[in-house]
C-alpha cells in the first residue's frame, strides 16, 4: 500500500538525552498504524516531532498527499496542521470555556477565515461569510452526530464527562478534514465499553463512513490499551528506549520475542546488554 507518512531515521535529542534515535517506518494510506512501547520509549516525543511541536534533531518526515511529498520537519507547527495532519493530546486540550460546537468551528478557522476576507469582509457583513458559516456548522453537526455528542452541542466543553471530551477532541481534529489523524492515547481513562465504541469510531474514520461527506482518513495512534491496539490496528510499530524494535501486523507483533522482552522484562544476562 502507498504510504501516507514516511519517517526516515528520525532522531530527537534533548541535550545529552536521546529520546528518539534513528527511527524509520512508514504509515500506510487508509490504514490504522499504532505506535506502542513501554513508558518513556519515546512515543510522544516522536508524535510531537510529526505534529511540529518539536523540531527533530535529524532525519526526515514526509507526508504523501495529493501526489507530492510535504517535508513536515521543515514546517512550522500551524503549517503542519494546514498540510493535513491533525492531532489530539494525551491530556485532553479542549477550549473548556467554549461550547462543543464552538470548539469544532475553531477547528475550521482556516476555511472560515478565508471566506471572511481575513476579517475585513465579515465585519462589514458581506454575504459570503454567512453561507460559509452555515456550511461549517453543518460539518460540525455531522461530526457531533458521529461522536454521539449532538445533544451536548451547546454545552461548554469543560462540563462534558471525560469520555465525551475525548470524543469531542477527535471530532475537532476531524473537522479540519485532515489526511492523517494522530491520536495520543485516545483510550486513556475510558471504560471498556467506551474503548470498544472508540475502536469502532476509529475504524469508521479510517473507512470514511464516520460522518456524511467525510473522506477516508489514515490514522496514526499511540496507545497503551493492548485490547484497543490489537483490535483495530492494521500495522504496529514498537518503540523501546527511543529505538524501533519491531514493525509488523498485530499477529506478528504478538509473537515477536523482542516485543515480549521489552514488555515483560528479559533474562538477567541480557540486562547488561541493554544498559
Amino acid at each position, binding site marked *: 500500500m502507498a504510504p501516507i507518512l514516511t519517517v526516515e531515521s528520525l532522531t530527537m535529542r534533548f541535550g545529552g538525552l536521546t529520546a528518539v534515535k534513528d527511527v524509520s517506518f512508514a504509515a500506510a494510506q487508509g490504514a490504522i498504524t499504532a505506535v506502542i512501547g513501554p513508558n518513556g520509549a519515546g512515543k510522544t516525543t516522536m508524535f510531537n516531532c510529526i505534529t511540529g511541536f518539536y523540531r527533530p534533531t535529524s532525519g526526515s518526515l514526509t507526508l504523501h498527499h495529493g501526489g507530492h511529498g510535504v517535508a513536515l520537519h521543515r514546517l512550522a507547527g500551524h503549517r503542519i*496542521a494546514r498540510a493535513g495532519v491533525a492531532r489530539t493530546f494525551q491530556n485532553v486540550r479542549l477550549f473548556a470555556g467554549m461550547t462543543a460546537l464552538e470548539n469544532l468551528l475553531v477547528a475550521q478557522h482556516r476555511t472560515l477565515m478565508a471566506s471572511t476576507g481575513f476579517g475585513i469582509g465579515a465585519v462589514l457583513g458581506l454575504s459570503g461569510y454567512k453561507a460559509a458559516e452555515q456550511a461549517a456548522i453543518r460539518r460540525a453537526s455531522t461530526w457531533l452526530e458521529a461522536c454521539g455528542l449532538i445533544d451536548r452541542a451547546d454545552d461548554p466543553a469543560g462540563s462534558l464527562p471525560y469520555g465525551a471530551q475525548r470524543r469531542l477532541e477527535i471530532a475537532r481534529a476531524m473537522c479540519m478534514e485532515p489526511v492523517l489523524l494522530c491520536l495520543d492515547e485516545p483510550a486513556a481513562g475510558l471504560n471498556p465499553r467506551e474503548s470498544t465504541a472508540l475502536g469502532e469510531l476509529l475504524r469508521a474514520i479510517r473507512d470514511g463512513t464516520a460522518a456524511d461527506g467525510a473522506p477516508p482518513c489514515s490514522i496514526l495512534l499511540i496507545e497503551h490499551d493492548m485490547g484497543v491496539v490489537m483490535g483495530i490496528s492494521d500495522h504496529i510499530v514498537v518503540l523501546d528506549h527511543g529505538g524501533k524494535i519491531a514493525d509488523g501486523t498485530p499477529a506478528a507483533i504478538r509473537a515477536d520475542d523482542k516485543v515480549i522482552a521489552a514488555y515483560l522484562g528479559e533474562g538477567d544476562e541480557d540486562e547488561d546488554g541493554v544498559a
Partner: protein
Amino acid sequence: MSLARTRRPALGVALRDAGLAALIAAGLFLPMVGLRTDVGPTGALFLRTRWTDVLLLMLVVFAGRFLVRLWQEWKTERRAPGFSQRIAGPLSRSGRFVAPVFLLLAVLLPVLPGVGRYELDLGILVLTYVMLGWGLNIVVGLAGLLDLGYVAFYAVGAYSYALLAQYFGLSFWICLPLAGLLAAFWGILLGFPVLRLRGDYLAIVTLGFGEIIRLVLLNWVTLTGGPNGISGIARPTFFGLTFTVGGGPGSFAEFFGLEPSPTHRVVFLYYLILALALLTNWVTLRLRRQPLGRAWEAMREDEIACRSLGINITTTKLTAFALGAMFGGFAGAFFATRQAFISPESFTFIESAIILAIVVLGGLGSQLGVAVAALVLIGGFEVFRDLQEWRMLVFGGAMVLIMIWKPRGLVGSRTPTVALGEKRAISASMVAEGRG
C-alpha cells in the same frame, strides 16, 4: 443541643478573629490617625494626639470583622446557595434588557431635564473610559494577553492628532483614522517582541513599553514640547462648521440659526465619543462571532491546541494587539481634541491601571460589564468628590467588595457565539482567564 455546640465555637472563632483584626487596626491607625502634627499659634509644629479616634476606628473594625465572621459561619452552616448565586440567574437574564436601557439613556442624556454642562462633561469622561475599556477588553478579555501599558496607545493617538494638526494643519476627521492607524502600528511593534512571553513577563514588558512612550514624549522636547505639552490643539468641526462661542459666519450656531452657546460643542463632543465607543463595541461584538474572535478566545483557552488546529498564533496575537491599540488611538485623538491641551502627565501608569481595573471589575470579555464598571469607577469617583480624601478609601473599598462578591467581575459568564439551540451563558468557572 447539637446546634448549641456548633454555635458556640463559631462565636469564639469570630471573637478571636475580630480581636486580631482590631489589633492590626491599632497597629495601622496608631501612627496614622493617632498622631498628627499641627501648626501651633507661634508657627511651630506640635504633635496632637487623637486617641479617641483610634479607639473608635478599632471598635468599628472589631464590630465589622466580628459580624462578617459570624455571617460566614452562619452561611457555611446553612449550606444554602449564596446570595450571589441566587441572583446570578435573573441578573444574566436581565442583561438582555439592561444594555438597551443603558444605550437609550446614553443617547438621550443631553436632552434629559436637569442635565447641564457638568453632567455632560462627566458623561464624556465616562464614555472615554468605556471606550478604552472596550478596546483593552479585546486584548485582555478576549485574547487573554495581560497588557499593563495600554495607555501608551492612548498617548500615541493623542499625540498623533496633536502633532499632525499642529505641523500639517490636518483636520480632526483626517487625523482620527491616522491616529488609529499609528496606534495600531505601535501595537504591532509592541506585539512582535512579546509574542513568546506569557503572564507576568508579558505584563512587565507591556508596563515598560507604556513607560518608554511616556518618557519619549517627555524628553523629545523639540517635537512634543516635553513637559509643557501641546496646547491650542484644533477643535473638531461639524461638517466644516466650527463651534465658536461668538457665533459668526461659518459657525454651527449661525448655520442652524441657533443662539450661540458653548453647550453646542459639549453636546457634539458627547455624541462624538458615544459614536466612537459604539463603533468599538460594534466591531468587537461582530468580530467575536467571527473566526478571528473565536480564534482569540480559543487562544485564551489553550494556545497549544490552537496551534495544532492550524491557527497562526503570531498573526492572531498581533491582530488582537493592533485592534486594541487602534481603539486606544481613536480615544486618544478624541481626548486631545476635547482638552485642546495634552502633556505626558495625562498618560501615566495609573491610567493603564484604571483601564485594566475597569476591564477586570467588569468581567473579562464582557462588553456590558466593562461599561457598567467604567460608569461605577469613573462616575462614582466624581460623585464622591464631596468626600475629599476619603473617596480613595471608598474607591478601594468598592473594588475589594466587588472582587469578594464577584471574583470574575460583574459579568463573569460568557455567552457562546453560536448555538444549535438556545444560547446559554457559560459560567465563569469554566472560562479560562488566559495567562499570556
